[in-house]
């Protein structure tokens, strides 16, 4: 059994580890390229959202590389993601591929159900071993998370951006190759130290919050690598969604660690008072949170026609007005020209820089 799965940011590292530790053969799809997207566009429904298109491309490329089993997540709506696996199976079968599809449905309440689903894949491991593997992978996920956060911070502050990119990339690869928790910890602290020791510039650094739909936030190929691009322009990005929180909230129902979701929901009120599926409520709540913790601006990202994000976008201008924080919305779809997106990001950061300067001047009495 050669298992493949869709890409989403750096998720491929822990999933690959998970499968290998369950004594299964993992065939991660090749990195997302223009070809991946082209395949997805060709075979996916035209009005489907971008993550569906990219993951179809992922699957086709992985199946061509010899994968025979697809691991995919499910869900029970109202967001479209819950029906992805069904549509993808039909499309790939109609294309003539032979494969088995394993769909992990987020359990209603029971964590053991999820563990059993994971165990069902690994044929030769006991439930106890599965639990140990899951714990190890959780450790790995948290390490990757620490690296990402450090990268987002130091990239904006250093004057040697390329070196930061390289240190981060090497750190990620090294974590994927580790076998023990203490190795992971060592790689993690070394990489962070490396980023920390990079020379600093003395330009002002903007603080930007990135909110929106989870796939678009996490997957650089989907958002034109927005975090790194902003980092290169001396803007430090903080996201509304990090992988461990997402797993904790959605797969384990907040049982692993304390979740801040209740607070996010409180902040979303009175702008958005009900859940709207996907991450709509988180988008609004986190924007308010960013505004109140003195961020300079917020960028909302999502795939075109994403329903929860449209609801959030509809109320975001009110949030922007009342919490006094500049917000911008970027939707991504099949278009592949990066210049348009980068121009808008440049204009946005320029605007934020001026705003910061003006506010500073007002405070110092320079401008009346």
């Amino acid at each position, binding site marked *: 059994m050669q298992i493949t799965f869709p890409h989403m940011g750096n998720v491929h590292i822990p999933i690959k580890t998970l499968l290998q530790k369950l004594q299964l053969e993992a065939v991660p799809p090749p990195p997302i390229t223009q070809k991946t997207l082209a395949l997805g566009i060709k075979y996916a429904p035209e009005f489907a959202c971008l993550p569906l298109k990219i993951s179809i491309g992922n699957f086709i490329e992985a199946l061509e590389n010899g994968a025979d089993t697809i691991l995919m997540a499910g869900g029970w*709506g109202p967001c479209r993601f819950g029906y992805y696996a069904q549509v993808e199976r039909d499309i790939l079968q109609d294309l003539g591929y032979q494969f088995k599809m394993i769909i992990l449905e987020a359990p209603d309440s029971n964590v053991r159900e999820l563990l059993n689903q994971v165990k069902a894949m690994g044929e030769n491991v006991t439930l106890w071993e599965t639990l140990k593997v899951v714990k190890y992978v959780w450790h790995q996920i948290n390490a990757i998370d620490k690296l990402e956060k450090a990268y987002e911070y130091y990239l904006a502050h250093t004057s040697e951006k390329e070196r930061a990119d390289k240190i981060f990339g090497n750190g990620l690869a090294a974590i994927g190759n580790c076998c023990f928790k203490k190795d992971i910890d060592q790689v993690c602290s070394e990489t962070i130290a490396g980023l920390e020791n990079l020379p600093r510039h003395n330009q002002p650094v903007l603080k930007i919050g990135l909110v929106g739909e989870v796939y678009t936030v996490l997957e650089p190929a989907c958002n034109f690598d927005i975090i790194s691009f902003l980092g290169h322009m001396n803007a430090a990005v903080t996201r509304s969604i990090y992988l461990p929180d997402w797993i904790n909230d959605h797969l384990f129902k907040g049982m692993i660690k304390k979740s801040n979701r209740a607070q996010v929901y409180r902040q979303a009120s009175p702008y958005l008072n009900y859940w709207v599926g996907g991450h709509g409520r988180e988008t609004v709540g986190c924007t308010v949170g960013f505004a109140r913790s003195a961020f300079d601006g917020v960028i909302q990202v999502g795939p075109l026609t994403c329903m929860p994000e*449209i609801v959030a976008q509809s109320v975001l201008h009110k949030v922007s007005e009342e919490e006094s924080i500049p917000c911008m919305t970027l939707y991504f779809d099949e278009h592949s020209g990066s210049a348009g997106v980068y121009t808008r990001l440049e204009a946005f950061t320029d605007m934020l820089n001026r705003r910061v300067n003006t506010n500073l001047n007002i405070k110092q009495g320079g401008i009346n």
Partner: protein
Amino acid sequence: MKRVGIPRGLFYYYYYPLWKSFFTNLGAQVVTSAPTNRLTVEQGIQSTVDESCYPIKVYFGHIKQLCRESIDYLFIPRIVSVEKRSYICPKFMGIPDMVRARIDNLPPLIDTIIDFSRDDKLTNKEIIKAGKIFTNKTSLIRDAYQAAGKELQFCKTLTGQGHTMAEAISLWEGTSLPRLNSSSDLTVGLLGHGYSLYDQDISMNIIDRLRLMGCRVVLPEALDKQDIESRAATLPKRVFWTLGRKMVGSALYMAQRQEVDGIIYVACFGCGPDSMVGEIIERKIAGKPFMLITVDEHTGEAGLITRLEAFCDMLKRRRMANDADNFSPHG
């Protein structure tokens, strides 16, 4: 007498008789907006984000119109779910918040939460809460709601006889329907969300156009609920959108019926569930002619008419040719 405004959009086309009777039973006067026209559309487009789907934009236009009338309350329900473990669409769940954020000088909203996804406790509470605006007697509110349910049932019998929900509402209100002179030699299954099909502006009057072209139009509302559900249950995973499941079930049912010559699906540009459901239907009903029409705010009718004519011509020819050398169902 308190005046309650109900916008003529979205679930108006499924639940208006229920809502209207409920409020009038409680002694309120119900006001609706005029049928969708260019002004409605323009005002709707102005007050929504570009990415919203067309029916949402139209709905906002209706709200704008009602805001100009002297009404005491505006009824904008938050329709999360109308049956267990199924949803409508995220936008429906956020609509009162979207309206509050995007339209100024609103009358007080009655934003009743309708959520049957787990049980009916919350919704029952919400109905009482809405009724409390007009009377303090809980029993009176319950009676009003039950009597209103009967009115809705009456309209559903009318749709069972082949009327559209818009026609059923007119009949229920005592207006007679204009007679269309048409002979029907084709039978076309027409699928789509009620709020786009029955709004003559959104669907560009597709139902009457088909009737005038000599088609008997079969709508999902005319089918037996059991037939729809049993066909929809053949999919490996339950479709968790109420309307989506209705469409899939209806399409699969119609695909098996000899008398249905072809199926047309009216989807809205940017509709999330439609993008998935349309794809599933297209793949599952191989053998039956199928056409997907996407509507949005464009106003050119010629494109639609040409496509309908071509589709009907194709159906007629296909019928003339004997089964042995059938025309390709994909035209």
